[in-house]
């Protein structure tokens, strides 16, 4: 069962879709991990017991804190988004893609490496791209694997790349691995929901969990709000809605009235950087679910 309200993570790690400078300020505001934990605990007390989590390096500190708390470790549902793509883009500029893969694989666990050597070592491994993709997923998930992992999302940069290249196999590979190895819900973040649903028709993945931006303004909704709405009517999927307030352009009442008028909206991600309006926001959402 997917949680209905999830706490978002962007504000904790400096992501802001309206103004990057505000993002940087928020990252500084949450410079101490305890400040993030205060928000997480506040939400938990408001019965919002689920959160999105990127694999940002600072998220590792949050994961450690969650692990120390009995109630959070057991009950807080973690919806992990892999990988933290901005890190890899910078690394690709710093050392190139080949070095990223080589260095990441070097850091995977000893047991993993042993398995790799038994299958023929690094040289052979890089020829077996499918195994390598699974290992890279493991590399990203490892620090979070002891938490209550409910779902693992493939980052939209990779989902949409697989979509553009028309590689349905990659989506299946990810989904099968997440299900088998982590017993979590395989899920996909995308900026192109209608087109992605057409690609899923070429796979064995049914009724997928999708995270995508949707709001009354149509901000960050491709190719258009109308086509997105049509896709919700046409395809079987579970939608985790993000950017529902259009980066703060919409008031919660108006935003959620629109959102929950749509079919298949199962859950919503809410970004909170203070507790001020949280109670109102949650009660506004709960009117509809």
């Amino acid at each position, binding site marked *: 069962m997917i949680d209905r309200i999830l706490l978002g993570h962007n504000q904790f790690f*400096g*992501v802001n*879709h*309206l*103004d*990057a*400078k505000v*993002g*940087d300020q928020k*990252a*500084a505001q949450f410079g101490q991990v305890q400040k993030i934990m205060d928000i997480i605990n506040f939400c938990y007390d408001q019965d919002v017991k689920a959160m999105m989590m990127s694999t940002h390096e600072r998220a590792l500190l949050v994961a450690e804190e969650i692990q120390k708390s009995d109630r959070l470790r057991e009950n807080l549902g973690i919806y992990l988004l892999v990988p933290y793509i*901005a890190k890899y*883009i*910078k690394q*690709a*500029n*710093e*050392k*190139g*893609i*080949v*070095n990223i*893969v080589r260095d990441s694989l070097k850091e995977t666990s000893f047991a993993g490496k042993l398995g790799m050597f038994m299958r023929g070592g690094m040289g052979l491994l*890089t*020829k*077996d*791209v*499918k195994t390598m993709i699974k290992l890279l997923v493991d590399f990203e998930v490892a620090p979070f694997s002891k938490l209550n992992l409910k779902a693992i999302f493939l980052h939209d*940069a990779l989902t*949409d*790349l697989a*979509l*553009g*290249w*028309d*590689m349905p*196999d*990659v989506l299946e590979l990810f989904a099968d691995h997440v299900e088998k190895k982590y017993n979590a819900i395989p899920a996909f973040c995308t*900026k*192109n929901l209608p*087109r992605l649903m057409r690609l899923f028709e070429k796979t064995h993945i049914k009724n997928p969990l999708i995270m995508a931006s949707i709001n009354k*303004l*149509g*901000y*960050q*909704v*491709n*190719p*258009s*709000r109308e086509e997105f709405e049509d896709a919700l009517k046409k395809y079987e999927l579970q939608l985790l809605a993000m950017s529902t307030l*259009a*980066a703060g*352009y919409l008031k919660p009442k108006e935003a959620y009235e629109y959102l929950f008028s749509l079919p298949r909206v199962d859950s919503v991600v809410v970004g909170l950087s203070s507790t001020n309006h949280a109670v109102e926001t949650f009660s506004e959402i709960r009117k509809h679910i």
Partner: protein
Amino acid sequence: MKLAIIGIGKMGMLHAGIMNALDDVELCAVSDSTNFLLNGVKSLKPELNTYDNYVKMLDKEQPDAVVIATPVFLHVPMAEECTKRNIPFFLEKPLSPASDQAVELIEMVESKDLVTMVGYMMRYVDTYMKAKAILESGVLGKVITVHSTIYVAQLFRKGKGWRYSKEQAGGGVVIGQATHLIDLLQWMLGPVERVTGHTINWYSEEVEDFAHVHFEFKNGAMGWMDSSWSIRHHRLMQINIEIHAEKGNLFVCDDYAKLYLDEPADGFNAGWTNWYNPDLFHGVEIDVGGPQYSRQGIAFIDAVKNGKPVASDLRNAFEVQKIVDAIYKSAENHGQPTDV
């Protein structure tokens, strides 16, 4: 329309993903000199033809258009091979390590009237398009001065690979990243006449990590640019441009365009008028890595198919390159003013 990709690193993968998704475009082949990347493609998309030699690919596949997304020093020879075969090409920015290496290519391309595009994609970002339109409307009057920065927190130790080799990349942060800003300034304010440049190599041995540049534009405006890939607290590459003009100011970055006018003009009120991305957004057919890349790819395909103009062709990239050359020359001479 058959599309082939030369170089399937980060940018080649991105362009291939976008253009392959467009109507009537079929990704037919890719080439790369790195076996590891070719193996990846072979294993995930077996129907695609792969080559470790791009010349062989061009001859055998005879594509209708090519994307070149390789290290900078390979751009010109690869573009020349496409030009010889009359194949329209999209080239990643920057054009070449230095402008003199591209002179023959430019002549060849222009004599054939071949469709080309160079990846200065900032011209397809909503906020910069809005800023360009405001400047063209004339409401600000004459531009007096421009202050601009381009920063990212990327490099805090010695980097690896071609990007940090003077010979292979042509330089460091100026040619590698600040060319986006130089292109925007040239696009918005017109040609640059003279520059003064100062650079610091801090983390890198051969190339600059920090640069400060002063511009004199042909229309009489002045301005400066500060650039670095080693500025902390910039999660993403961030450009900021402040334009100070006779009748007001214009502040523009990836997130917004803010206009300030002393007096009402042309339908704008006196005081501030702000446009944030949600005000300017319109959806794209496919978004992989940001709508600006999609619009750029769509424009290239449209140019090849229908002869529509592109925002940044080879000639434009050449003009950017000449400014870069002058900056490096000035920096070598302790900031001596240098003509472009």
